[in-house]
């Protein structure tokens, strides 16, 4: 493991039923302030990989090792290590558990033992930052999908995690919402892993990218190079982002 690596995943295998592997021989490292994208077709194991890193998969079915900040993710340490991690789930309904948006954003802070005043201050800051102040007292059931997504991101950013795992964060956001999300991601100094099908978002936010297909890493390298490689992208059911395609034609 290199000195600066914040996450190290070493020969990770995972299977839900014990027969078919969902993740197979996953090995990579990410630095402390590095942002890594995970792309791949539906069902390639992107979300599962994020859950594995967050220590949310049944440990009995995970083979291989995951290290967070030089500490091995294991059952006895998972609860403590998870406090350094913020996971934005793909489906906001799986994540939002507070009775109101405001309460939900404060839950992570509450779990980390912040006092009431600090919680209120941070919640207010995140509500403002994500432009959802008017939703503070609303129930998460009553707001739109895009608003739910913003509330999820706000709840995770509020705890200022060292490792941010974003599972399809741009899904359901309007263009302005996406631009704001890109700004937020780029201004955050945490180590990040961002999965998704939105190639432009991955291109604009990450330095490196992992291409997953059928649970295996089929390519890992600089985002600009991998996403521009038409052969890799099309072979694995993906698309070169339009902006890279335009640049390619301009060069020609």
């Amino acid at each position: 493991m290199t000195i600066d690596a914040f996450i190290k995943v070493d020969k990770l295998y995972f299977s839900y039923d014990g027969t078919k592997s969902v993740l197979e021989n996953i090995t990579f490292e990410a630095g402390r302030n590095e942002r890594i994208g995970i792309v791949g077709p539906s069902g390639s194991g992107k979300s599962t990989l994020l859950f594995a890193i967050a220590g949310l998969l049944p440990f009995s079915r995970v083979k291989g090792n995951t290290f967070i900040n030089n500490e091995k993710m294991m059952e006895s340490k998972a609860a403590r290590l998870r406090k350094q991690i913020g996971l934005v789930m793909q489906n906001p309904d799986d994540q939002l558990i507070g009775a109101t948006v405001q309460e939900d954003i404060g839950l992570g802070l509450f779990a980390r033992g912040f006092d009431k005043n600090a919680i209120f201050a941070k919640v207010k800051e995140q509500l403002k930052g994500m432009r959802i102040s008017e939703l503070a007292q609303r129930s998460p059931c009553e707001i739109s999908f895009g608003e739910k997504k913003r509330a999820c991101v706000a709840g995770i950013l509020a705890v200022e995690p060292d490792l941010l795992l974003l599972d399809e964060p741009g899904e359901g956001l309007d263009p302005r919402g996406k631009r704001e999300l890109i700004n937020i991601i780029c201004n955050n100094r945490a180590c990040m892993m961002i999965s998704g099908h939105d190639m432009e978002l991955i291109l604009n936010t990450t330095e490196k990218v992992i291409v997953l297909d059928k649970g295996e890493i089929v390519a890992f390298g600089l985002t600009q190079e991998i996403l521009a490689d038409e052969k890799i992208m099309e072979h694995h059911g993906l698309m070169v982002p339009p902006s890279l395609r335009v640049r390619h034609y301009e060069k020609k």
Partner: protein
Amino acid sequence: MKPLLFCNRNCFLAAGHPVARFVMLLSLLIHFACGGWGNSFLGLSLDFCLVLTLLAISGLNKKAVLSLFLLIGTFSFFMGLLIWMGWCFNLGKASAVNWIGISVRMGGSVCTAVSITGSSAPGEFGYLLEKIKIPGRQKDRLLMVMHGFTSFMSSFIIIPLALRAGIGGIYSAGTRAAVSIIKGLPLMILHRGIRRGQSLSIALEARGFSGFGPSMFRPSSWKIADVLLCVVSTFILVTGFLK
């Protein structure tokens, strides 16, 4: 005229008419065959069936529908409290505000799960509607088609049967019949509650609450609650059909 809906007290999912029972049995068999998708599939289908059953057994009587929903709501609320109490015990720390807030939300989730229109709380219905717009996700499309098909077929057969039977809902059938018919509902609610409880427990773990052993994260897989529900439902439906 013999009320069709109450000719078999044990068959809580379907009306008493053999055709209706057959359709419901077929729907459930389709669900079992595709059960590998677990999470929302069985739950949502049963929500549809449950709503239709509620409408059918109430004879479309507004007062009866409201009473049933109130009953389910109360039950769900207290079940939510119980589940959350279990979490508190395990988590070791939780404020009264969150305790009540999440219990209300859990109760609300289960209530809205059976009310179709407000099903954004458990998320499945709204989630599927969102997903179906995304091309290439065959699984979600198929789910939607199958849910649509089974619920359409159910409503096509059960509601006209209820209307034709000319009954006034559970009130006209007497207290014993009403109790007999609604006694199966808590089983379904319990199932939905357990499911929602599991997804919320994952969310809690991911948000930094923890302390209760291995993760409960098991997406898209059968759970004991599913198997139990399937066995019990099949038994009831098959016995109802054979009578």
